[in-house]
């Protein structure tokens, strides 16, 4: 069957050209440039800035050097840290908490529901810099709100940003991103016909049984979408930098911060580009997986 078209082929191509050129210049060319730079020892300062050498895979080899892989401040440490960060803050934090909130919101009075939504969404839409400053003030050792509360309760003061930096960014990212999961699950639950639950109520089902046997199975597709999206976002999130600068001693240096540090604080463009390429590849895997799942869903396989 001949596809329906509004424009002739050539007219369509002409309209696409400007966008194509822009994308070519600002997306595709830098993409290949980054790949090229990752094979050199190019830096911003020093001798290798003007005369970078082609060093083949040396940047990649050094990133995966077994001797230093697990050392703090090296690529491997950041990679593992990022995976832990995603598991804890995105999957256990945002998704699970979002699910819990969304499920509880199904039964509460409407005013309480909108109030909760408002608070959670506020955390999501405020500018990141503002949020980071607020958290910084909240956690400060000497004058922080949290420590004032701790002292008020007769508990010892905590040196949160120094003693538990990783948990700080996990809680921060959970707090920050739960809104999205909550809203997504909330609308998913709302789309389930109320009669299903009413029938279950008549049969005397508990809330947990209703969740396990009706709610969750019917929104499985949404859950998969949510998990993939928040995993990707969390994997690439840079905001914890505003709280901890990646420190102390690299203990919160997740991959985006590591990349930034190598490229724009150490000015090692070659090595930074190599990290960038690896991050791009990981994101590509997420994206392909996401596309695969949505296609399956579109064909009605998953959900």
């Amino acid at each position, binding site marked *: 069957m001949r596809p329906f078209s509004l424009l002739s082929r050539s007219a369509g191509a002409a309209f696409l050209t400007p966008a194509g050129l822009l994308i070519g210049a600002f997306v595709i060319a830098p993409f290949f440039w980054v790949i090229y730079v990752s094979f050199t020892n190019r830096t911003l*300062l020093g001798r290798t800035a003007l005369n970078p050498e082609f060093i083949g895979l040396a940047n990649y080899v050094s990133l995966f050097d077994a001797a230093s892989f697990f050392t703090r401040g090296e690529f491997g440490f950041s990679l593992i840290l990022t995976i832990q960060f995603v598991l804890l803050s995105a999957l256990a934090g945002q998704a699970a908490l979002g699910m819990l909130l969304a499920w509880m919101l199904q039964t509460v009075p409407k005013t309480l529901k909108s109030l909760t939504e408002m608070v959670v969404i506020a955390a999501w839409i405020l500018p990141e810099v503002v949020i980071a400053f607020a958290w910084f003030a909240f956690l400060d050792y000497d004058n922080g709100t949290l420590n004032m509360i701790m002292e008020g309760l007769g508990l010892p003061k905590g040196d949160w940003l120094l003693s538990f930096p990783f948990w700080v960014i996990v809680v921060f990212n959970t707090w920050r991103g739960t809104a999205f999961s909550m809203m997504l699950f909330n609308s998913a639950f709302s789309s389930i016909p109320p009669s299903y639950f009413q029938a279950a109520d008549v049969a005397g089902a508990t809330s947990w049984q209703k969740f396990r046997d009706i709610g969750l199975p019917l929104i499985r597709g949404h859950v998969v979408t949510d998990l993939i999206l928040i995993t990707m976002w969390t994997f690439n999130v840079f905001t914890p930098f505003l709280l901890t600068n990646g*420190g102390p001693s690299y203990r919160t240096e997740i991959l985006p911060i590591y990349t930034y540090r190598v490229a724009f604080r150490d000015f090692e463009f070659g090595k930074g580009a190599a990290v960038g390429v690896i991050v791009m590849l990981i994101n590509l895997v997420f994206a392909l997986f996401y596309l695969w799942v949505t296609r399956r869903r579109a064909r009605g396989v998953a959900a």
Partner: protein
Amino acid sequence: MRIRSHAFWMGLAAATALATPAMAVDLTITCRCVDGGVNSEQAKWIKESVIPAFTEMKGGDVNVTLTEFAGSDEQLTQQLALDFSTGAGPDVAGFDGFLIPSFVEGGLLKPLDALAGEAVTGWEGWSHISEGAQALMSYQDKPYGIALGTDVRMIFVRADLLRDAGIDPESWQPASWEELLETARTLKEKNPDSFPLQLNAGVPMGEATTMQGYWMALLGTGEHVTDDQGRYIVASQDILDTLNLYKTIYIDEKLGDQRAQLLGDGRNRTFANFRDGITAMLVEGDWFYRSVTAPGSEFAVENRDEVMTWAKMPAKEPGAGIRGQDFVTISGGTGFVLNPNTDEPELAWELLAFMNSKEQLNEFQKFQPRIRIRDDVPIPDSPFLTETSQELLPLTTARPNDADYNAVSAEIQRMTEAVVSGELSPEEAMKRYGEAVVRIVGEENTVSLL
């Protein structure tokens, strides 16, 4: 950086509307200086003295603005490196001399005479600046900027705390690391919550770690970062001794405040500790006296001239220091450079030269007394400056004038941080440092002394 069209339209508008001189040129200065904040005196000097006088001299054809940069030294370096590489940035920029080689090799600076020609070579000021002082902002015998002065490093001491512990601050001068640690132990015993001794370490402090901490210890072992042939020393007993000194202070005996070395605003914390009497001995540059603790600043020490004194940094053992010295110090120099992409190189040079004229440096002395770079600017009547310069300048040395030093220094900061955070042992930290330095300068430019 001046925006041509902007200046043009502004000038045109001014000329037609007010019939004032058209085509006024814009110049910008950036330095890590904030009125009422860091380097406050410098900001005030530029705003209240340099700019009005320069504008008046040029008959109002020039608009000079100061961008007060409030971030850290490292952030300013980052900003300038990226600005200079893209053709942006201020016309005149505050700059630490040790960065010049790496910027030059990266193509991010031009020699002053290449930018502004004859006017530079013919400047009257050069004859009043010694060769050593010119070298602070030079690379391969070409000046890229002009330093405001040089500095020295020492132990700043809280006399009141020493007195409380039964030590006479007037005669207190440790002759070895052990004596220094012994005093710290005495003070710690007297006040277990205090952190009597602070020797900078860690990444957040940047070059302050290398200069005020690592060098001050390493020179006391008789070693430099490089050997006589300019090769970087990647392993030696002296490096280990230095790292073990850190370990003793921060890990084993908790004589120093570890948090202050690891947190992002660490340096300010060390200043606050000193001000609040938590730290009694702080190794810092004379900037600490000139600016940080000066009356009216955030970390001003009350009754400064009574409670604050200083001592020389001892070598590990008497005579064990560099060149067989008993005491050590190191000097650097900060000043101003010209943006290689400036639209107005001649005018920018004129401004730089004007800042370093005898009159303007004399004005600066009123804001902040200091040993100036020009020999025709008298040293103000300051016992501190006279004393420290007489005692310490003969002992001093400088960092390698090398394009790779900046990157190596960052590795030194990492090495010390790994030790004071307790993450690595001195041996492991030195091993990682060695590997990193080999990566930076190449195996052939390194040497192991173990």
